[in-house]
């Protein structure tokens, strides 16, 4: 499976971001959106990708961008993880049917049953302008995302 590339329309989705609430990609039309698919909540702490993005969030927001983290963990798991890490952005639960959204972006690992560590930057009209798939064990950092957001502004 290869991930969707620049120029492709971003598949819409509606995912639970809290046990009571859903978020659709189409609701964010008009703003740049960063999708960060990742394998699982609760990976080791200091090298944690979502914790890093939480710190970089003000820089993402300076481009007017919205960030959504997505994994196959359920909404209650996300809630506990977000609370523990003091996360200030939504985590989508790609939980039922499992991995369906990840699959639609080409970012699902069939054998493992979890998402790839894949990043997408989507422009305000809903088109993917940049994507990157990192080896599962390597935190891709935020430099690629910031560069892609900078490109959008040009």
């Amino acid at each position: 499976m290869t991930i969707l590339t620049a120029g492709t329309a971003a598949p819409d989705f509606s995912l639970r971001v809290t046990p009571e609430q859903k978020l659709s990609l189409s609701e964010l039309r008009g703003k740049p959106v960063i999708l960060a698919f990742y394998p699982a909540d609760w990976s080791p702490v200091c090298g944690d990708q979502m914790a890093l993005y939480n710190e970089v969030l003000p820089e993402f927001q300076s481009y007017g961008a919205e960030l959504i983290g997505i994994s196959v963990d359920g909404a209650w798991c996300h809630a506990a993880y977000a609370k523990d890490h003091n996360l200030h952005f939504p985590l989508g639960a790609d939980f039922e049917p499992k991995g369906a959204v990840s699959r639609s972006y080409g970012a699902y690992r069939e054998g493992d049953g979890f998402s790839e560590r894949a990043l997408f930057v989507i422009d305000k009209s809903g088109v993917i302008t940049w994507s990157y798939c990192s080896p599962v064990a390597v935190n891709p950092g935020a430099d690629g995302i910031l560069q892609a957001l900078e490109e959008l502004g040009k």
Partner: protein
Amino acid sequence: MAKLSIAVSSKDHRQGDPAAPCTLVEYGDYQCPSCGQAYPIVKRVQKHFGKRLSFVFRNFPLSQMHRYAESAAETAEFAAAHDKFWQMHDLLYENQDRLGNELWIELAQELHLASAQLTEALETKEFQPRVKADFSGGVRSGVNGTPTFFINSVRHDGSYDFASLVEAIDQALE
């Protein structure tokens, strides 16, 4: 391959000769346990390479996760303004299990720095811009957690145990 986007300069905190053939840059967080583990390893690596290596420390506090990381970094920058960065850097890592305001004051006194001035600097966030600039530059260089090391400006993606760092630096020196 991630590369250092902000070149090492005289504004950096550096140990060793600026003309050394190898420069090791660490982006670190004083409250990060992994950085605490890396601290004595870096000392050993510095001793091992002697004059062939210079070492630079830049701030990368994960302040949403570590409540004392930012003020620890600002405390070290305050010490730097009085030419005592490395003493404070070392003391912070050596006392990582008891970070907090009381420790900042105690360490300032130990280094003969005016603790009232430190308290004021922390309250007015005098050194926050410096810490933020380090962080922001680090993000753009591909820092993806703490500690992240750069050897001659190239991100070191391997492990940071003594043998791995020595091997990577040896390669850079070849």
